[in-house]
């Protein structure tokens, strides 16, 4: 019973981390119609910048400056890359961000090499916040939860209470009309891309010490981020939040319980083959849910798209 509570908390941390990435990605998609394949690469940039800054002045300045640097990098990419490709249409845009993801990974290896970076949480947070039945819950994770919640509240405030937010909201619902309102659309685009990538940068800085800072970190997370916003519904911030939490818990609980598929099959009426080695499906019988945990989101996405192409909370189709 206690374990379930711990799992809920762990899943919350994973889900909120995902949301930090998804919120930026979905903002960018809503405004610009670009599904940014390189979003997780900006997350990785955030972690590396954070690490580099932390080696000089410690963790906390990194938390402030690394996302700003990532945001600037993102804005520059929009200004000098994406804006150019925009005229060719959405498919080339998608391909551009795909290429960008490859390029960023190479650039990071160029400067930092291929090793895992020794990026650690600040000492001030390196203690156990509380324990549940012998399971320690590190203070850093509590910190992660608060940062993610904070970001969500700030985003919510900006979107619903400020002028910029209103423009963005309008763009979410009526992408074509905003153009006609006389707003400096290119500037708004650049700003949104910068802020979106900066959010990914924040996620990178705070996730880097926990999940490891290495050149493959973007790939591990990259496609899951897409999957999340596709499931949540492209362009829906609430959808992104709910899908993030859903996937966070899905993965946590899948990894936490060793349910064997064979047992499930038996319980719904199949009979186990006498000699498993001869059976072509032998691997299916011995499979556990935790083995397939990380691919469950993909399965979920394919199902959702096949049944409801606009995603759970999406209003528009792509």
């Amino acid at each position, binding site marked *: 019973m206690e374990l379930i509570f711990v799992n809920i908390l762990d899943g919350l941390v994973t889900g909120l981390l995902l949301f930090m990435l998804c919120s930026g990605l979905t903002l960018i998609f809503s405004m610009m119609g670009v599904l940014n394949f390189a979003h997780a690469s900006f997350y990785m940039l955030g972690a590396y910048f954070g690490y580099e800054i932390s080696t000089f002045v410690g963790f906390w300045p990194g938390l402030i400056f690394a996302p700003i640097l990532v945001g600037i990098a993102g804005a520059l990419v929009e200004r000098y890359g994406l804006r150019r490709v925009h005229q060719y249409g959405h498919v080339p845009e998608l391909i551009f961000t795909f290429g960008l993801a490859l390029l960023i990974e190479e650039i990071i290896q160029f400067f930092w*090499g291929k*090793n*895992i970076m*020794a990026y650690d949480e600040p000492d001030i947070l390196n203690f156990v916040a509380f324990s549940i039945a012998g399971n320690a819950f590190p203070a850093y994770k509590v910190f992660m939860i608060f940062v993610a919640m904070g970001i969500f509240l700030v985003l919510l405030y900006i979107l619903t209470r400020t002028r910029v937010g209103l423009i963005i909201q309008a763009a979410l619902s009526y992408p074509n009309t905003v153009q006609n309102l006389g707003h400096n659309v290119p500037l708004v685009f650049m700003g949104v891309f910068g802020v979106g990538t900066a959010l990914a940068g924040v996620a990178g800085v705070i996730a880097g010490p926990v999940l490891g800072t290495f050149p*493959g970190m973007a790939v591990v997370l990259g496609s899951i981020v897409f999957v999340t916003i596709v499931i949540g519904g492209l362009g829906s911030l609430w959808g992104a939040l709910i899908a993030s939490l859903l996937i966070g818990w899905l*993965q946590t609980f899948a990894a*936490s319980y*060793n349910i064997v598929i064979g047992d499930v099959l038996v319980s719904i009426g199949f009979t186990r083959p006498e000699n498993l080695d001869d059976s072509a499906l032998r691997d299916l019988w011995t499979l556990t849910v*935790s083995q397939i945990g990380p691919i469950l989101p993909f399965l979920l996405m394919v199902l959702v798209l096949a049944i409801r192409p606009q995603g759970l909370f999406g209003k528009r189709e792509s």
Partner: protein
Amino acid sequence: MKKVTGMILGSVMAGVLGFTATAAIAADNIKIAFIDPLSGPFATTGTNGLAEWKFAVENLVNVKGGVLGGTKLEVIGFDNKISPKESLIQLQVAIDQGIRFIAQGNSSGVANALTGAIKKHNKRNPDKQVIFLNYAAVDPALTNDKCNFWHFRFDANADIKMDAMIDVIAKDKAIDKVYIIGQDYSFGKAVAAAAVRNIEAKMPHAKIVGNELHPIGKVKDFTPYARKIIASGANAVITGNWGSDMLGLGKAVIKAGYTGPIYTYYAASSGITKAFGAAGKGVIRVVSEGTLNPPISDRVTTYVNAFKAKYPNNNVSQLRIANTVEMLAKAIDKAGSTEAIKVAYALEGMEIDSIWGGKVKMRKVDHQAIQNVYILAHTDENMTHALDNSPYGLLTENTVVDAGMDSPTSCKMKRP
């Protein structure tokens, strides 16, 4: 029109290709092709291995005047991008350059592809036969069901290492709950199977409280696994994880409040030692075929210091590379030739004194090297040769002499 321009472009590029394919044959060094990842996500281990190879060849063989009375050895790196397909292409390129010794180690998948391809190649091209020096791929199958005459393994395989590991764990009677976790692929499964077999045989008092596999390279956060380990009450964890899966698992388990030992195969160097740092002290154990701390002789210290002076950002971490190079040199001298088949026969049953202590013997029946296996602890105490330019390194805790000497094999070697 377009077609023709395409053709012209093609022929120009093909010209470049032809040039490179034939240009490299020069000098009369004996060349060893090092086919391992030199780019991409696994390049760290690959480039480190290449540095170790180059250094070993220079310092163990060439400074003494080389082989066959004066011929030098030379290691040439080929980037296989850890892809089986690329490995086969690079193998072909290496053979074309007249190279007859192929060294590879990263990924048993690649080793499997290579050993199969080399077997077929040697059968189809008797005039261009090559030897496969497997210095790190530890999938037991390579010296069992899939063994062949051209393949020699210089590392202790996963079964032998597990055998030694459980021998050591069994001495500690306080350990009665063991948790086994690994990556979901052949090596992870081999480790799990060997662990179960050995625990059942040697630790009747102990219980396996968990045995599971997780997808390889796809787990972002190991916390849920760590929770299960804590909940199971385990007081020893065994894992074959490597790379970021190793670091992620180790960190998550420690953060979740686990304080017992984690027995591993690959929780050292490539940044992992540095990243574990203080957190891993007293927890991380590594099973290895050699040890640096305490160094058994001045020779070790000189060797490692010279290496660090030359490659300050790398580690002497794959100790069997030195053994491989020394054995190969001895075999070439013994055969009096670089012909693959003669060298292969010379290697069978060969025995040398390892620079790291003890003896290394190439078992004839399955081409598996038999050597001492050590259980090392991650610590910063008594460190002569730390890793990753950090204060931390690996210190010998236990030694199993000639581990797996009598281990069974299902290999039915066919000799040409």
